[in-house]
């Protein structure tokens, strides 16, 4: 029988060869290759790690999950990182944790109001509705695409208990103002940091200001594990609650394959169970099972080593788009970084000015016909989406800017896979379009 360690070494070497043969060399051909808005960027290490995890065949949370969470914690300088299977699950878990009875009077209850925005991705809002609370939609600022602080303050009532908003496309919202509002009114803050992993506000990473924050590792995001996400908190009780909701609602925090890490597995009293009932099967929350697998985490471990580089590349790509679109100020409103921030841009967002000779749909159709991918700002105005139309929400004042975004805004990618040739092509396509008007 062959030595399994030797076989493993051979498999890893072959994996590296495979990467070189399959992925290492790609050529951009104008008009034939797509300029994607996003995509996974990786080298042999991601595939090697995935193969290593497959050969471990541990499958569920294991050594790579530990390492991945540690790397994220070290990067952000935070105490707790809970991995999950998507950014949307991260949002659901962060919100779920705040509904726990263990939080006493501070827990979120059905009927409470949560400040959010309608110009965003539904996963920021759906947990609010799923738990029977009321999203209160505040309009956004057209320059930063983030929440309008003045309107947010006016939206707060005696029912308001939480602020749950995203750093739109990597651009941090005004964290000073939001945290001040939260402190003043004793509100929870969840930062949806899914599009902003690596962005900074006043020198500190976004995702480290709120009580909880979330990250997404979907391939469009700053790093990827395929599907995947994480919840961040420095609050030990919230970390415990997130873990419980993620892991079936169970009270025990041992990882898969571990036993009795608390040292009191058979000697505690819970609910009406007999004394000493196995802690592994004690359920203190109505939970889910939303854990990440070790194979996903293995890819994340390799991606974390590239995060800083990826963020720098995103910032450079943003500047390249800016240089191209800023030639036409009569047609386009361009984005502004929030004061004091250093965004690791998820995308380059553009709003077509009203009363120009073309509209958003016309130019995005043209760009897409030239294989330059664009996207709208997600749901546009969430209140107009079919799933949300008849749900229980409230508009704080008006959503005029949100409607403008729904009608006139689109974005292009800033992901690190974009090359100079692609930008040259994009510039020519745009110049020709404008010249042909």
């Amino acid at each position: 029988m062959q030595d399994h360690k030797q076989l493993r070494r051979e498999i890893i070497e072959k994996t590296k060869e495979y990467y070189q043969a399959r992925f290492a060399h790609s050529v951009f051909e104008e008009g034939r290759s797509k300029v994607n808005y996003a995509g996974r960027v990786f080298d042999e290490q991601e595939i090697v790690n995935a193969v290593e995890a497959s050969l471990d065949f541990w499958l569920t949370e294991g050594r790579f999950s530990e390492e991945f969470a540690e790397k994220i914690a070290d990067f952000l300088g935070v105490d707790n990182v809970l991995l999950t299977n998507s950014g949307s699950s991260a949002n659901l878990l962060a919100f779920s944790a705040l509904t726990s009875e263990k939080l006493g009077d501070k827990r979120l209850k059905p009927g409470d109001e949560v400040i959010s925005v309608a110009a965003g991705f539904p996963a920021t809002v759906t947990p609010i509705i799923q738990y029977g609370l009321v999203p209160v939609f505040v309009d956004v600022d057209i320059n930063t695409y983030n929440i309008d602080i003045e309107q947010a303050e006016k939206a707060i009532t005696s029912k308001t208990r939480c602020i749950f908003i995203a750093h739109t496309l990597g651009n941090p919202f005004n964290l000073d103002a939001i945290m001040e509002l939260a402190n003043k009114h004793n509100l929870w803050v969840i930062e949806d940091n899914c599009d902003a992993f690596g962005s900074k506000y006043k020198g500190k990473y976004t995702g480290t200001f709120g009580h909880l924050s979330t990250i997404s590792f979907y391939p469009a995001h700053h790093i990827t594990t395929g599907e995947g996400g994480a919840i961040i908190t420095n609050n030990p009780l919230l970390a415990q609650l997130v873990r419980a909701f993620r892991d079936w609602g169970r009270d025990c925090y041992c990882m898969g394959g571990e036993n009795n890490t608390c040292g009191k597995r058979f000697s505690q009293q819970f609910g009406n169970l007999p004394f000493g009932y196995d802690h592994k099967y004690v359920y203190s929350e109505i939970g889910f099972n939303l854990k990440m697998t070790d194979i996903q985490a293995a890819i994340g471990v390799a991606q974390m080593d590239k995060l800083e580089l990826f963020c720098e590349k995103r910032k450079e790509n943003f500047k390249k788009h800016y240089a191209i679109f800023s030639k036409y100020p009569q047609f386009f409103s361009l984005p502004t970084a929030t004061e004091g921030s250093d965004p690791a841009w998820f995308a380059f967002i553009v709003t077509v000015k009203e009363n120009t000779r073309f509209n958003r749909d016309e130019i995005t159709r043209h760009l897409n016909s030239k294989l330059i991918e664009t996207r709208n700002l997600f749901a546009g105005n969430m209140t107009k989406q079919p799933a949300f139309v008849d749900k229980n929400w409230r508009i704080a004042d008006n959503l005029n800017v949100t409607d403008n975004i729904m009608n006139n805004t689109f974005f292009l990618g800033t992901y690190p896979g974009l090359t100079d040739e692609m930008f040259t092509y994009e510039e020519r396509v745009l110049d020709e379009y404008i010249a042909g008007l």
Partner: protein
Amino acid sequence: MSIVKKYKAEVIAIDSFIDGVYTLTLAPEKGRFRYSPGQFLHLAIDTEYDGASQWPNSRCFSLQTSPDETYAKITYAVNGEFTHQMENAIKPGSEVWVKLPYGELFDQEHSRSHTVFISGGTGITPYLSLFTDSSFAEYQKPVLYAGFRSRIFNLYSNELRRAATINRNLVENYIYQDTDGILNIDDIFAENGVYASYFISGPPVMIKSFKKALILKGVDEKNILTDDWE
């Protein structure tokens, strides 16, 4: 509570002033140990373990040093198969793997205005990590009742001297079984009353009986915090 991490550590000192009781001083190979006072670690002695494969069999031990220290100390008494293995396998200079932090003893809500710390034997160790930490200064009326078999089992004079300098309000009560008898929960309650927060750490039987007694005397169960391992 910081994220749980694995650390390769060197045993830089082993102190044993009593047969079968050892204090290990551990230094991480890289970085610093991150934990809060009152937390504990898991220690593995599997020589095959390389830090990459799945975590091997391990046992938990209270961290008895302040998180500010560059090293961590744990104390164990040889009383089972794992600790027998530790006694045989761990020598000065040995490398071990530890995983930490675990536990939430002092992260739980409790009163800092009047706090009672009751320990039996090595049950004092989680308190030492708090007593030697700067955060201990926040406690207004900390009272310690530490029971030991005899004076020689009180191995913690250095830490307790330091505790007294960090918090001058600390009241220390030592009960030595060979001369004073055992800790008496009725006396402790009589001196501290119903509104104090009570921490209890030590043998499971002691924890269980003291907790029950305090509840019967009207202490709110939320104010009784225990560090009870199996």
